[in-house]
C-alpha cells in the first residue's frame, strides 16, 4: 500500500502569494478585509485592513452630551448593545456617585443576560453556517426571535435598544416580562440539548474544531484576548466575577472556563455560558425588587473633572469605557476598549500556520462583530 503521507514531500516550498479575504467574504460577517500571505494553502501572514465601517465614534462623543453618547454605543457591538449602553451609564453614575435602586440593577442584569444569550445564539447559528451546517442558522434564529420579542415589548426596539440611560432605564418593565422570560427559560432548556445533538457531536464538526487554532494561556494574556476566547484558554477573565457590577454580586453562577485553547474549547465556553445565563435569569425573574426605575438626574449631565473607567463583560469580552472629563457637558476624550479589536489582535497570531479553511473556523469561534472593531 502506498504511504500517501510520506510519498508527498512536505518540505516543498512554493512561491508565497497574497490573497484577499474580504471585505465581502461571507465568513467575515461584515466588512473585514484580511490580506493573507499564503504558502500553498497555509497561512503564513495575516494583515488586517480595517476602516470600511469606521464612523469615528470616539470623535463624535467629544461633541455629544453624555445622554447622547449612549445611542452611539449601540452601534459598536450591535449584538451586545444593551451591555454597551450599560457600560457608559455605569461610568457616568460612578462619576456622579449616584447609587441606583435595586430594581434598576436587577433589570439591567436580566437584560444583559438575555442579550448575551441572543448574541451567543446568533454566533452558534452563523458558526454552523460558516463550516457548512446550514440548519443551525434556522434553529438559532427561531429561538433568538423569542428574546427579540421580549426586548421589543419592554424597550421598543429589537436590536439597538438604548434602554439604559444614566441613572436608570428608559421605561419600566412590561407587565408581561416575567412570564415571557419564564417561558423562554423553559424553552431554552429544552432546545439546548437539541443543539448539542445537532452539531456538537457531529463528526465533521469535531474534526474542524478539535485541536485547531490553539491559543496558549500565556499567549492569550500577552496578545490581548478577553472574553470567551481567553476563557477557552483557561483564563479566568470574566469581569462579572472579577469586578461585579449591577446585580452580579448577588447571583450565583459558574464562570465557564475550558483548558483546551482550541476551537472546541471556545465553542464549549459559549455553550456553557448560555446555561449559566439561564441560571442567572432563573434566580432573578421571581425576585425583581420594587422601586424606581429611574433615579432623579439633571437633564444636562456635567461630570466632575476627572478620568473614569468602567469595565463590563459583553458577549465578546471586556469592554472598557474610559472617559476624561474637564467639567463641561461634553467629555474631553472617550476611549472604548472594544473586545473585538483586541481579539482581532490575537487572531493575527493564532491564524498563522493553519489552512484557509481552518482560518474560517477559527474566525467563527472568535466571533467578530466588525463595527465593534472599527468603531
Amino acid at each position, binding site marked *: 500500500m502506498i504511504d500517501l503521507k510520506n510519498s508527498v514531500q512536505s518540505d516543498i516550498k512554493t512561491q508565497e502569494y497574497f490573497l484577499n479575504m474580504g471585505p465581502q467574504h461571507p465568513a467575515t460577517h461584515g466588512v473585514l478585509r484580511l490580506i493573507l500571505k499564503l504558502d500553498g494553502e497555509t497561512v503564513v501572514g495575516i*494583515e*488586517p485592513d*480595517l*476602516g470600511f465601517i*469606521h464612523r*469615528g465614534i*470616539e*470623535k463624535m462623543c467629544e*461633541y*455629544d452630551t453624555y445622554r447622547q453618547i449612549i445611542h452611539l454605543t449601540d452601534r459598536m457591538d450591535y449584538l451586545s448593545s444593551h451591555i454597551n449602553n450599560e457600560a457608559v451609564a455605569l461610568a457616568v453614575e460612578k462619576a456622579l456617585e449616584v447609587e441606583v435602586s435595586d430594581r434598576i440593577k436587577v433589570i439591567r442584569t436580566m437584560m444583559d443576560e438575555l442579550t448575551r444569550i441572543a448574541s451567543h445564539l446568533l454566533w452558534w447559528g452563523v458558526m454552523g453556517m460558516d463550516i457548512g451546517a446550514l440548519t443551525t442558522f434556522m434553529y438559532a434564529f427561531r429561538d433568538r426571535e423569542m428574546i427579540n420579542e421580549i426586548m421589543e415589548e419592554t424597550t421598543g426596539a429589537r436590536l439597538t435598544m438604548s434602554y439604559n440611560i444614566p441613572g436608570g432605564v428608559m421605561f419600566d418593565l412590561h407587565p408581561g416580562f416575567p412570564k415571557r422570560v419564564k417561558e423562554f427559560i423553559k424553552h431554552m432548556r429544552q432546545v439546548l440539548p437539541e443543539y448539542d445533538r445537532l452539531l456538537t457531536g457531529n463528526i465533521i464538526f469535531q474534526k474542524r474544531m478539535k485541536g485547531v487554532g490553539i491559543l496558549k494561556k*500565556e499567549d492569550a*494574556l*500577552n*496578545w*490581548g484576548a*478577553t472574553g470567551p476566547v481567553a476563557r477557552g484558554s483557561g*483564563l479566568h477573565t470574566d469581569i462579572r466575577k*472579577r469586578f461585579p457590577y449591577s446585580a452580579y454580586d448577588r447571583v450565583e453562577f459558574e464562570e465557564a472556563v475550558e483548558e483546551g485553547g482550541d476551537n472546541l474549547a471556545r465553542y464549549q465556553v459559549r455553550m456553557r455560558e448560555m446555561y449559566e445565563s439561564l441560571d442567572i435569569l432563573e434566580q432573578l425573574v421571581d425576585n425583581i425588587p420594587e422601586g424606581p426605575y429611574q433615579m432623579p438626574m439633571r437633564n444636562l449631565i456635567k461630570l466632575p*473633572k*476627572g*478620568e*473614569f*473607567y468602567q469595565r463590563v463583560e459583553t458577549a465578546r469580552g*471586556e469592554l*472598557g469605557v*474610559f472617559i*476624561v472629563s*474637564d467639567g463641561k457637558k461634553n467629555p474631553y*476624550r472617550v*476611549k472604548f*476598549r472594544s473586545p473585538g*479589536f*483586541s481579539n*482581532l*489582535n490575537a487572531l*493575527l*497570531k493564532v491564524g498563522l500556520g493553519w489552512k484557509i479553511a481552518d482560518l474560517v473556523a477559527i474566525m467563527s469561534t472568535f466571533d467578530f462583530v466588525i463595527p465593534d472593531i*472599527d468603531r
Partner: protein
Amino acid sequence: MTNEELINYISAWNQDAEFQLPATGENQLIGILEDIPSPFLNIEIPASHLKTFLQRLKEDPELDFDVLFNMAGMDWGKTLGVIYFLESYTKKHAITVSVQSEDRENPLLPTVSDLWFAAHLHECEIYDMFGIRFEGHNGLKRLFLTPDFEGFPLRKDYEDDYMIIRK
C-alpha cells in the same frame, strides 16, 4: 498589592543606581494633570525612560504586569500623550502609566508591542488618530483611514468643517 504598596515599591527603584525615576517627590510621580484624578494609580514618566520602566514593570516578579488591557492616545492641548493600562493576572493589581510628548510636529515614542503584543493594533490606531509614531513597531500603518488621509482626526486642533458638526 494595594495602590499604596505599589507606589512604595516603585518609589524604591529611585535608590537603584541603574534605574532612576526622573521625578522625585510624591506629587510629581502621581497624576498626569494635578487637577484630574484617575481611577487607577497613575505614574507619569518621560518618554526617554518609558521603555525601561515598562519593561521593569513587566519583568519584576513582585509586580508581574503581564496584561496590557487598554491603550489610549491623548491630546492634552500642548502635548500629545499615551496612557498605558496595565494589570497583573495573578496579583490582581492595576496601574496606568502615562507619557507625554512635547513635539506635536513629529512625536515619537518607543513601541511596547515587543513586550505586550496586545499593543500591536492599539499603536497603529494611535498613529492613525493622533500621529504619534512608535519606534521599532513592526508594521505601523494607518489602520482605519486611507494612507493618503491628511491630518489626525482625534487631535483637538483637527479641522474639518464638512464632517464635524460643532454643537
